[in-house]
């Protein structure tokens, strides 16, 4: 590509054209080497793998194209062979007019206006339909014609993944015959990228070791990183698929497998560490008789939802999950249920520990039951609440408070406070859609809370912080009036 040499003048571009060729072969070789490596696994042949490989290829191609830095807009589209040819033609146009005319009927126009066109066109040519119209009329139509004719070709090329390296077309075709997957080696190529650009010659020798190093490094890596790595490895494997001629990379593969096996084994270890930490924290607190293992449970909860919902909770969760049929929220459900199941076991013991390592009591069941009974009556069913139900409700309220604490702390921190303020609560309720223009928090309080609590709620109102607060104040007055009336 003419673009390959950044910052070169037009005259200089001709020479650069060769450079891409020199650089590209390494890429090709990499795929060729790849198949050998990847060849062992036949997985790659699948269409998905191909698509992935293609994507990787394109990405890699984008990386490798030197012209990229120079151009500002629509770089990728420019990288087609046609563009290269066009650039070349432009460069040649001023010097050799006869040839340009011979190549295409319209070129004479270009030749006649080379200086103008070149200056403006370089960037514009490749931005297809959009920019053309902007420029002067005479120039536009000519270019449009060119591109109108050629785009179909481009699309064909791109589909076949030939976009970037026009020169590579034949080679890649060969590669396709063996295995598509070979092309997919992109991953390694990504690593190699810089090397390839820097050293054209050394690439072959240097090519294999880096992946090996990469894998080994991964093997060496810490266990906590495992989960992410597994995915990465799988992806790579897919890309690597195919028949391997070389045994060189066998070792890294073995490493991968070992890592795979390791994963399940390690998870318990992690938990243990957490438990230890938790226990340490508990001891530090040294407060409650609450069994240590209760505490551990809570800590696990904190970490599980993020990483490994499946591992620990499977046994207990299964029961609950089976009960819950809703398929839509399976993920959330399973997680919650798992949490629930874990908690159910040890819930009845006194205090639990929050995510921040602070002990907290749970609401007394009597209070919850009374509230639930009231709600159940208003909901239309009989007020009876079985112990089972109460248990479930207690769980739900535990989660509710956990969630609420999270949200409130987030709001407070966002406001730069270390104290949860009333405004946070107002914000929260508004975001919960519990309050809106027609429903003020105070109105809700009036409906649901006894008067003593209402009194408490009314006290802080004088601090006007937000719009709803003003409403509450108004409401407040009204409330007082009502009270007076009553």
């Amino acid at each position, binding site marked *: 590509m003419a673009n390959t040499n950044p910052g070169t003048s037009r005259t200089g571009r001709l020479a650069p054209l060769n450079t891409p060729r020199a650089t590209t072969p390494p890429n090709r070789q990499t795929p060729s080497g790849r198949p050998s490596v990847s060849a062992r696994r036949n997985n790659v042949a699948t269409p998905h793998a191909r698509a992935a490989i293609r994507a990787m290829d394109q990405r890699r191609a984008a990386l490798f194209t030197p012209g990229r830095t120079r151009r500002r807009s629509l770089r990728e589209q420019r990288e087609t062979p046609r563009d290269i040819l066009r650039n070349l033609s432009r460069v040649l146009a001023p010097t050799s007019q006869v040839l340009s005319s011979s190549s295409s009927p319209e070129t004479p126009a270009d030749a006649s206006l080379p200086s103008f066109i070149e200056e403006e066109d370089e960037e514009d040519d490749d931005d297809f339909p959009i920019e053309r119209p902007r420029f002067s009329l005479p120039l536009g139509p000519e270019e449009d014609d060119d591109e109108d004719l050629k785009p179909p070709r481009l699309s064909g090329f791109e589909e076949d993944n030939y976009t970037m390296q026009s020169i590579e077309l034949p080679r890649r075709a060969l590669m396709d015959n063996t295995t598509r997957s070979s092309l997919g080696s992109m991953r390694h190529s990504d690593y190699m990228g810089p090397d390839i650009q820097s050293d054209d010659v050394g690439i072959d020798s240097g090519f294999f070791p880096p992946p090996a190093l990469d894998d080994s490094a991964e093997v060496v890596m810490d266990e906590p990183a495992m989960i992410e790595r597994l995915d990465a490895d799988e992806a790579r494997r897919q890309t690597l698929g195919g028949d391997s001629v070389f045994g060189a990379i066998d070792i890294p593969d073995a490493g991968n497998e070992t890592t795979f096996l390791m994963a399940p084994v390690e998870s318990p270890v992690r938990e243990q560490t957490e438990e230890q930490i938790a226990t340490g924290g508990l001891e530090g607190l040294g407060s409650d008789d609450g069994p240590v293992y209760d505490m551990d449970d809570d800590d696990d909860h904190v970490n599980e939802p993020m990483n490994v919902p499946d591992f620990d909770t499977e046994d207990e969760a299964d029961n609950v999950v089976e009960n819950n049929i809703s398929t839509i929220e399976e993920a959330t459900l399973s997680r*919650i249920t798992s949490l629930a199941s874990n908690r159910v076991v040890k819930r009845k013991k006194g205090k639990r520990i929050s995510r921040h390592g602070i002990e907290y009591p749970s609401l007394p069941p009597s*209070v919850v039951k009374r509230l639930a009974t009231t709600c159940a009556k208003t909901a239309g069913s009989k007020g009876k609440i079985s112990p089972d139900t109460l248990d479930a409700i207690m769980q739900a309220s535990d*989660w509710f408070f956990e969630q609420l*604490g999270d949200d409130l702390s987030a709001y407070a921190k966002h406001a730069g406070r270390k104290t949860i303020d009333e405004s946070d609560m107002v914000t929260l309720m508004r975001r919960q859609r519990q309050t809106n223009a027609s429903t003020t928090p105070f109105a809700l309080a009036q409906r649901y*809370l006894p008067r003593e609590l209402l009194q408490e*709620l009314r006290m802080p109102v004088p601090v006007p912080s937000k719009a709803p607060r003003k409403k509450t104040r108004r409401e407040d007055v009204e409330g007082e009036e009502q009270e007076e009336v009553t």
Partner: protein
Amino acid sequence: MAPGQKMYPRATVKKIVKAHSKCNVSKNVDVMIFLDYVLFMQTLIKEAAIDSKQAGERNVSAKSIRKATPDTLAKFKG
């Protein structure tokens, strides 16, 4: 609710939220928090009641509560 009875243990609510948020809780916020909790409970029970009625049960069952919990929690996610 019986007249002389407290509706809820304020200190406990405060402690719970404080533990979960790792923030201090200003003076009267717990009232609002409890109000929110009441609303939550109401929604939860209502959903569960509907669900259990559809299942043909008379009372609110634990199962329906569990079923309604995720939805309601999501609804009360700020």
